[in-house]
């Protein structure tokens, strides 16, 4: 297959520095295996039998094309994410925040990736993979609309028909992204079951996949779902930390003391952490949405937060064993966050494992702190972040003295999609550092 030299190249290409040991099939030395999809006690493949052959086919394609660069797949992916996506994204020193917190704050600017969020890394990777697999149709779920938008862009770029499932409530919260998907030629199908957010959208997309599995690829938007999705999505997203690690060392001559990323399903989180996992001295903080409270109301089946790493318990949802927000019976509870992209009752199995191992520290900030973070980054650095991303800055504000001398924060997305929500929520909550928003009452339109 390939030489010893190419072996490390292939594994580096997939960004699997930290997980080489579990990525090997052990037998012949030059082939990288997709592994068994377990991360400690988490992961697995809990899906209907009808999907298992497709998942087997996908695992095979992931191993061949992504892990072993068959047909030059990874070369093409890297070329396209550079030319179409605009990689590498910069690492920027945040001058005012560094001064304010008396710590060196560096921003990994994924908000500058085409589409305005890290989501394109994965979407482009998977749509390209679907093409290599000979699939004819793309489906995806979306919460905030960033993954749907990225998938719609990638599908347009690679000339694939695409249908995106989105909760009705999220459609109302994220109208600009709905328009963007449609303009790119994708169909957007509202999901009306349940509370109409990401959880329901994922279930509905799985139903579509179970129906059209023979010619359709399901582009899962985060490091969740059955194997090989958690690992594959992480590999595509690990471009973030591959670049960030090199950039910070170039810039400061050393590794950072800490790396911070917001965490919903966990794709920007895993992408930002992946190449630092082997660097034991680097602290990794996953900032979850604390919502309005960390308590779970089991009687009502509601968790007014999305902090599954901080408060969840082990269970099985959407194809994987992971940490979940659930009641004592195992019914999944409704999560909440001011940012729809974090509003999910589960989390990627690898992240759950890294938390159990003590490698990743789960932390959270509430809706108000996230909104403050949103305004602070906008005012002090001229960067309007996504509300998801704003959680990381809420954490920076509250805990900057625990992050060491140098910290890297992933700016996972830009906030254009969130302006309506930011106006509404800011006015409603009386956020202390917000400008007067009264002229926008009733929204932007």
């Amino acid at each position, binding site marked *: 297959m390939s030489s010893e030299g190419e072996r490390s190249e292939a594994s580096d290409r997939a960004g699997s520095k930290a997980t080489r040991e579990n990525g090997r099939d052990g037998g012949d030395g030059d082939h990288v295996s997709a592994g068994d999809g377990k991360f400690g006690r988490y992961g697995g*493949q*809990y*899906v209907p039998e009808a999907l298992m052959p497709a998942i087997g086919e996908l695992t095979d394609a992931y191993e061949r094309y992504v892990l072993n660069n068959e047909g030059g797949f990874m070369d093409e992916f890297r070329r396209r994410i550079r030319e179409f996506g605009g990689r590498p994204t910069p690492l920027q020193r945040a001058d005012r925040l560094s001064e304010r917190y008396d710590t060196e704050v560096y921003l990994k600017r994924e908000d500058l990736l085409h589409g305005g969020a890290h989501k394109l890394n994965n979407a482009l990777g998977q749509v390209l993979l679907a093409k290599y697999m000979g699939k004819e149709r793309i489906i995806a779920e979306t919460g905030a609309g960033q993954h749907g938008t990225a998938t719609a862009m990638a599908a347009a770029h690679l000339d694939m028909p695409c249908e995106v499932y989105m909760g009705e409530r999220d459609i109302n919260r994220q109208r600009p992204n709905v328009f963007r998907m449609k303009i790119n030629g994708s169909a957007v199908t509202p999901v009306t079951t349940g509370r109409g957010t990401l959880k329901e959208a994922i279930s509905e997309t799985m*139903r579509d996949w179970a129906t059209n599995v*023979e010619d359709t690829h399901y582009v899962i938007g985060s490091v969740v779902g059955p194997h090989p999705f958690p690992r594959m999505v992480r590999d595509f997203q690990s471009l973030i930390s591959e670049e960030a690690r090199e950039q910070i060392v170039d810039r400061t001559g050393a590794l950072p003391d800490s790396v911070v990323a917001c965490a919903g399903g966990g794709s920007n989180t895993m992408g930002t952490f992946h190449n630092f996992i082997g660097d034991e001295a680097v602290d990794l903080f996953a900032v979850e949405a604390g919502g309005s409270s960390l308590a779970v109301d089991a009687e009502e089946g509601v968790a007014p937060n999305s902090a599954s790493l901080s408060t969840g318990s082990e269970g099985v949802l959407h194809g994987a064993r992971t940490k979940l927000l659930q009641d004592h*019976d195992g019914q999944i509870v409704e999560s909440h966050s001011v940012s729809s992209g974090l509003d999910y009752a589960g989390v990627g199995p690898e992240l759950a494992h890294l938390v159990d191992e003590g490698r990743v520290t*789960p932390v959270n900030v509430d809706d108000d702190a996230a909104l403050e973070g949103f305004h602070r980054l906008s005012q002090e650095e001229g960067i309007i972040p996504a509300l998801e991303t704003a959680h990381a800055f809420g954490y920076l504000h509250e805990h900057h003295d625990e992050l060491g001398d140098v910290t890297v924060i992933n700016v996972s997305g830009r906030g254009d999609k969130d302006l309506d929500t930011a106006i509404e929520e800011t006015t409603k909550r009386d956020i202390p550092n917000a400008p007067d928003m009264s002229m926008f009452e009733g929204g932007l339109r």
Partner: protein
Amino acid sequence: MSDDGASDRVAAAFADGPAFVPYLAVGDPDYESSLAYVEALAEGGADVIELGLPFSEPIAEGPTIQNAVVRALESGMTPTRFFEFVEEVDVDVPLVCMTYYNLIYQYGESEARSVSDASSAERSSANSRAAKPRDDGEERPASKGPRPFVEKAASVGISGFVVPDLPAEEAGPLREACDEFGLHLISIVAPTTDEERLDQLVEVSSGYLYVQARLGVTGASSSVSDRTGESLARLSDVDLPKAVGFGISSGEQAATIVEAGADGIIVGSALVDIVAEGHERDEPTEETAARLETKARELKQGAVDGYGRRTPAPEGTSD
């Protein structure tokens, strides 16, 4: 429920001619009506009944059963209530529990985790979980797993399980618990299941095979897939009864499926539709139950007719 060995009861249900296997979501639209509806199905000729224990994320279900699940959850159905239901329902056919893996997986945990007495444990544990501080990940519940659920199911007289989100790859622990308590694990065979997977699947299966007639989610449809015959032919060497489901809604369809070689028919959505209609119209429970019984008779008769139409003399695993 009688407490005869589960294995024998399911085998017996398929022994004399084709089996009619209806499904209803337990607690849809409420506990009491649901009792009457399940009893009506038995009255109408059910040979095995699949009782749905509703899960909040039913990824394999179409809109009809999704809505039933919502109604059942809203009426307060829980695993604990479900087991009470199984003990109370007055039918003399084997009962199979159809649910998603997380409910099976979580069942023992609340008791194991509780610090107080067992009866109040379930409510309090959810709250203590939220308050539970987490730090080094050292605190891991060792007791999660399917065994307590299976043990409880066996004690109330359940004969087996259908778990749509549990492929053979992940079925080991549940299979083991089923073996321990003498229950069946019924696997779903999809149109996409290839030979290799089929072998793997048969390995962990017992009772009968749930043959999915077409791709997609559950739901009644006007036409029965051509792939059914194909699927049954592929399964002809498997020494388990084959019950076909997904989309069967009429006696004529039941006949066609059985004529094609099925040992049984599974009908869910067409029956749930009747429950939903009754609920929407605010119909008295007895009227809805009577309509269910009539539908059950039609489906059972269809299956019997289909059996009679087989040429030449039917034989195989059902005899």
